[in-house]
C-alpha cells in the first residue's frame, strides 16, 4: 500500500510532469487546455479522454498537477478532481491531496474515489473525511461508506448517527442498513424520533433492511404512520402492513 501511495504521490511531481511534457508534448498540451463542459446539473466536468488508453496514467499525472495548482480556477480543479476520482487507480493520489485541499466542494468530489478504492486506502480516506470540519464532506463520507464492506468503518459510522448535520445522520443510517450492520439497530431506532424527516425516513428503511420483523413492531414505527411527512408516513405504513 505504501509503495502504491508513494508512486501516486510521485505522479504529481514536477519532474514527472516535465517528463511527460518532453516525451509527449502533444498530450501535455491537450490536457493543459482541456475545458470542462457544464453538466446539466451545472457542475464542471471534463468529457475528454485520450485516444489511446495507454495514455491514461499520463493524463492522471497532468490532471493531478492541474488539481493541485492553486492558480487554476476552481472549476478546473473541480473537474480535474472529478475526472481523477472516477478511477480507483488514483485513490492514493487523491488521499494525499485531500489533506491539503482547501475547497470543501472539491474534497466532496475527491471522497467519491473511496467508493472503489483498495481497502486500506478507502478506510483511511473515509475516516479522514468523516472527521472533516465541513458537513458536506462528512455527508459524502457517510454516503460512500454504504458502498464499502470493511468492518473498521462500522463504529465510526455509528458515531455519525449523532452528527449535528441531518444529512450526515440520514446517510449514516442508510450506510449501516446497506452494510447490514445489525449492531447499529438500537442506535438507528433513536433516529425514528429525529427532527428531520429525511433522517426519520432513512432510519425506517435501514431498520427494515437490518431486521424487518423487529422493526415492524416498534412503537415508534406505529407513531410514524401518522407522520407529517408523506414519505415517512408511507414508509412506516409499508413496514407495518407487510
Amino acid at each position, binding site marked *: 500500500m505504501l509503495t502504491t501511495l508513494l508512486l501516486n504521490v510521485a505522479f504529481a511531481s514536477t519532474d514527472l510532469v516535465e517528463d511527460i511534457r518532453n516525451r509527449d508534448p502533444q498530450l501535455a498540451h491537450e490536457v493543459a487546455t482541456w475545458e470542462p463542459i457544464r453538466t446539466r446539473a451545472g457542475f464542471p466536468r*471534463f468529457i475528454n479522454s485520450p485516444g489511446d488508453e495507454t495514455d491514461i496514467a499520463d493524463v492522471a499525472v497532468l490532471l493531478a498537477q492541474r488539481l493541485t495548482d492553486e492558480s487554476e480556477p476552481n472549476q478546473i480543479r473541480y473537474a480535474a478532481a472529478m475526472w481523477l476520482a472516477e478511477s480507483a487507480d488514483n485513490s492514493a493520489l487523491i488521499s494525499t491531496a485531500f489533506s491539503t485541499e482547501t475547497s470543501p466542494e472539491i474534497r466532496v468530489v475527491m471522497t467519491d474515489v473511496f467508493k472503489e478504492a483498495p481497502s486500506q486506502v478507502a478506510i483511511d480516506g473515509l475516516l479522514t473525511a468523516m472527521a472533516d470540519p465541513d458537513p458536506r464532506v462528512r455527508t459524502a463520507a457517510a454516503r460512500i461508506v454504504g458502498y464499502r464492506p470493511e468492518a473498521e468503518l462500522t463504529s465510526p459510522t455509528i458515531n455519525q448517527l449523532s452528527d449535528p448535520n441531518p444529512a450526515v445522520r440520514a446517510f449514516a443510517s442508510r450506510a449501516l442498513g446497506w452494510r447490514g450492520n445489525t449492531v447499529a439497530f438500537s442506535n438507528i431506532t433513536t433516529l425514528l424520533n429525529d427532527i428531520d424527516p429525511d433522517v426519520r425516513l432513512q432510519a425506517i*428503511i435501514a431498520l427494515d433492511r437490518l431486521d424487518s420483523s423487529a422493526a415492524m413492531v416498534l412503537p415508534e414505527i406505529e407513531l410514524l404512520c401518522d407522520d407529517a411527512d408523506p414519505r415517512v408516513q408511507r414508509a412506516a405504513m409499508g413496514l407495518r402492513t407487510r
Partner: protein
Amino acid sequence: MRSLLLILVLAGCGEFSLDTPLGPISVDDPALADAPGIIGVPNIDDDDENGVEDWDDAEDGGDNDIVGLTLYPHRKPLTLSVSGDDEFIRIWMDDDIVLDEDEDSLELSKDDGEAITLGIEFGDYLAKGILTISDGKNSLEILLTSSPLITNHHLQPAEYIWVLEYTGWGGNGAMLDVFEAQLGDRFIPVSGSDYGWDLWVEDEFEFASANGTDGHRLDTVIDSIRDRGLDDMPEDMLVEPDVALRIWGNPNQVTTYDSFGNLEASPPVTVDGVTYPFGRVYYGAVGDYHRPDEELTEMFASQHIQSPVEIDTSWLCVGHIDEFTSFIPDPSSEKGFKFLFADTVAGYELIDSMDGNLYLSQYASQQNGHGIETISEMRDDQGIRYYNEDIQANYLDPVLEVFISNFGLEEEDIILVPALFEEVSNCGAAALIPGTVNLAVANMEGEPVKLFIPDPYLRENTNDQSSDAFIALIEELFPSDIELFFVDDWLYHMGLGEVHCGSNTQRTPIVNWWDYPELLGDF
C-alpha cells in the same frame, strides 16, 4: 364562471348590434357575449421589429394582433365602458385609444347609424374584461378574453427541432446525422461556438402559444432564467413577428428546477370527469426549495386551462421531470398516447435475464463511462441495487400514483420502461443506463411518428444495435406503428442528460381554447 350576462332590456327590441370575429352580438342575440366573449391574442410581440413590444409601442405599427369589431349604433347615441383587467385591455377607434385603464367611459354621439370600427387590444395572457354598451334604453355586457398561454405537448405536430452542434472528440455528430437524415430541413442545428457549447437546448426555453380565431397564432418562447450559454439563442433565432418572448422569475435566485427540462405538458386527459383538452402542465416541485421560481408557477396556475401538477423530482441530481417521464403518441390507442415511466424493477428484470459475461464496451471506461465492464458487474453491485430499490420505493412508486390520479391514467396507458440509476457525488440520482424516456418526439404532419431515443449500449459491439437486448425490449414495448431511432447521445449522458434535454421542438398549436370557457377560471 359567470353563467349569464346581465342584459337589461328596458324597452322593446335592441337598438344596436356588433359584428365580431365569432359572429354577431345584439341585445336580442347575446349568446356570443357570454364567456369567453370577444377573444384575441395578447399584443406582446414586435410586429414592426422596432425593438419595442407592441403593447408598449406608442407608434402602433399596423400590427395584426388587434381584434376588429364593427358596431352598428342604429341611430342612438351610445355609452361604452370597460371593466375588469382594464390595465391589459384597450379599445381603439380610428387609430386612437378611446378606452383603457385611464379612460373608463366613452360617449359615441354619432346618431346617423353609420357603422363604427372598433379594435380591441389585449396586453397579457388570459386578460378578462367586460365591454358595456348602452344606449340609455338597452345595455349589453360583452365579455372580452385574451388567449391563455398554452404549453405545447407531445401529441401536437412537430414543426422544427433544434439541437446544438458539439464538434470534436466525443461530440454529437452521429446523433445530428440521424436527426438530419430523418427530418431534413425541419432539423435546425445550432452553432455550439456561438452559445458557449451549452448543450442543453431543452433547458433554455419552452414553446407555448396563444391563439385567436381565423388561425391567428402568437407563439411564445418562455425564456428560462437559467441564462447559461444559450441565453441569447431565443432572441437570435426564434423571436420574430408573431413570436413573443416572456420571462417569469428572478435570475438571481435561479435553481436547476427553473430549467425547462423540468416543465412539460401532458396530452389531453380526463380526470375524475374533468376534461383537459390541452393537457395539464407538470413540473418538478416539492417543499420550499426544490421548485421553480414562484413567479413562473403562479403564472401557470393563473392560466387555469392546463391546471398544473407538481411532482417530486428532488431525488434526482439534475431534478428535471424529463429524466424519468414522457408522453409519446400512440395512434393506435383510444387516448392517442402512452405514458412512459422509468422503472428500476423492470431494469433489473432485464439485466438479470442477460448473459452476465456480456462485455459492456461503452460503460467500461472509468472517465467516459461508468467503470462497469460486464452485465454481472452491473447487476451484482449491491450498492447500486440498494440505491435503486430505495428510489423505487420512496420516489418512483409514489410518483407514479400521483401521475395516475392527476392524469386519469389507466394500466394500459402506461409503459414501465427499464431504467437504472446511479448516485452522483452528493447530488442525487442520474441515469446509469441512458434514460430511454428522455427522448425527442418528432411527429411531423403527414409523416409517421419518429422517436429519437438514447442508445442504451447494453451490448459489446457498439456498432451493432441488433445485438442489444434493451433495444429489442423497447421495440417490443413501444407502439408498433411509430419509428424508433436509437441515437448516440453518450456525450449528453455523461453530462447527466439525454436526447430530450439536448433538443427543443416547436409544435403546431391546438387553437380552440374558446370552446372551453369552463376551464378558464372565474369571469
